């Protein structure tokens, strides 16, 4: 049980990831209170996939962070695997999208979309 053992560190965004998120929020006319929900979904050979969603208000047990002016919420289960992760955004056409620089990941495939701890 790593939950108590590991110190939970914030999930952060790079400047350009934050810009992209803000742009997406504005594009979809989301309310000021909108936050980025970050999570992991179990399964797959590497153990997880990252999930990104928008949330209006954090759930009771969510951890809430703020990075570059974007609120980030994460449920405790996902945070076990995401503590200290920095989310980046890459404009590149083929491999573009959000990238997860996850210190918990011992192995990461090229696309950064799945990992194992």
């Amino acid at each position, binding site marked *: 049980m790593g939950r108590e053992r590991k110190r939970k560190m914030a999930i952060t965004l790079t400047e350009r990831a934050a810009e992209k998120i803000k742009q997406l929020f504005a594009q979809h006319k989301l*309310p000021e209170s909108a936050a980025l929900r970050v999570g992991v979904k179990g399964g797959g050979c590497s153990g997880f996939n990252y999930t990104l969603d928008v949330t209006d208000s954090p759930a009771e047990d969510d951890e809430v962070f703020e990075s570059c002016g974007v609120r980030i919420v994460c449920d405790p289960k996902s945070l076990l695997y995401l503590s200290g992760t920095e989310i980046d955004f890459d404009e590149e056409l083929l491999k573009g999208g959000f990238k997860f620089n996850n210190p918990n990941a011992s192995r990461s495939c090229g696309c950064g979309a799945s990992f194992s701890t």
Partner: protein
Amino acid sequence: MDETFILGIDLGTTNSLAAWLTQDGPEVIRDAGGGALVPSVVAFSPDGSVTVGAPARAHAVENPLATVYSVKRLMGRGIGDIRGDMTFLPYAVEPADDGTIRVNVQGRRFSPQELSAIILRDVKSRAEAALDRSITQAVITVPAYFDDAQRQATRDAGRIAGLDVKRIVNEPTAAALAYGLDRKEDARIAVYDFGGGTFDVSILSVAGGVFQVLSTNGDTQLGGDDLDRELIDLITSEIREEFGQELSFPPATRQALRAFAEAAKIRLSEFDSATVEVALGKGRTFRRTITRREFEQRAGRWVEHTIEHCRRALADAALQPGDVDEVVMVGGSTRIPLVQKRVGELFGRTPYTAINPDEVVALGAAVQAVILAGTHRDTLLLDVTPLSLGIETLGGAMGKLIMRNTTIPCQAAEDFTTYVDGQTSVDIHVLQGERELAKDCRSLGKFQLRDIPPMPASMPRIHVTFLLDANGILNVSAREQRSGQEASVQITAARGLSKEQVDTMVNESYVHAVEDMTAHRLIDLRNESARILGAIEKALHRAGDVMSDAQRRLLDSAVNTLREKMDGCDDPDELYAAMAAANDAADPLTRAQLDEVIRKTAKGKKLDDF
């Protein structure tokens, strides 16, 4: 749809209007000319006909005694309650036997409810014409300070007008709803409502989408009309100075002056000056340019009254101005720059003025109506799914498609395939829950996709779509993409689920997080290993001769290790490594097969040539 349609109505002292919810959000009902406001005025002609709204107000100039306005002030009141109002009302008000009020219009007696019903019926029929549908249900707004009798009278008026009043909503709450402030968590909201005939301020708290009125304050005799009266007084005193003190103003002239003053006031919200021209008969014309500064000097004391009421409301709610998180402006008088400035100064924040202050209450009523009807909630509230939704995948894992706390409505899709050659049907087991294994989740239903044409394992592409609508109805469909075979099921995912059950499931998912995630990964790794082993076997059978002895020995050893690990190893990293090793060792086979495919399609080029 018709039985769930509820019209939102702002039954105002000065104006009334209605709104409904379109796909793009709430919208007010407008007539062909674009007008939304129906003056809350009823006029009775000598021939017995009744007019409502702007024509009735025009009628007031000619026949003030048969024109009834501000009837909202009389709703649910006794004759004793309205002594103060009576001096302002040009029409006759009398007590009924039961102590309630009757309005006497040229000998005909009407209850305030009946008069309000005439206005409501007009609003209703305008909406019916605009939307081309019959309307039988409504939400009607009332001031927060309305007592039970006044609220009941409003309900009765609706009933007389042929409307089933689903709810009486406080005007400040409606205004806050129109701005989506029900989504605020634990906020305090001041709603400053400076209308034509009344002023009130309400301090609300909101938490979990529920509003509470902490305090209200105000002055039912203070409104935009008072500001008009300032201008009327200015004009009449100057007219008398110019044309003689003995000059009297018949009712028609007074009504006309009222209209001029109001127009000047409205203009002064946008421009620095407004010119008034009054024809006094016998060739006499009064002309006067009024500056905004002049107006503000005269209006200022009324505005300060409203600020004083705000302070009292804050005191009653035991709050400091800085404790208020949001300020919402309602009522036409809040367009006055001086009002916005003073309210902003008091609360130390810029008030919300984005929504037309004459329409914001009706728009909020429409929002409330839709919440009551339970339709299109998605456009109002970002609701979330309390537990994840997915399907059972091979080996008994829970493959989540929609994650817990996802905003609804939402849609997710994933492709699955068969794992046995020639498989012609698949079972889709729909699950709900946070755990990673199917046995620890809640079964929502099962269905079968049949008549898949026989194909080798992994060939069919079964596209599974989850569609969770705003009302929590889950549609799961599965479609085999090659054959077009399709099956689906609809489930009310939220039904029969208590908060305790949700909390228990979520807590257990935290307690078992690591073991669950490991178990899920192991299942998927074993499936993938089995698939790889099967593929290697087939490839060896077909193209085993492309491998050197050394390559073959390496592959055999990797395959054996993987077989062992599949059954005996519970460390996913070890299994993953064995799987990767087998995959790598099979590389010559994979390349040979790819070369073969390419040879067939690209005329003999080697993979390396590309």
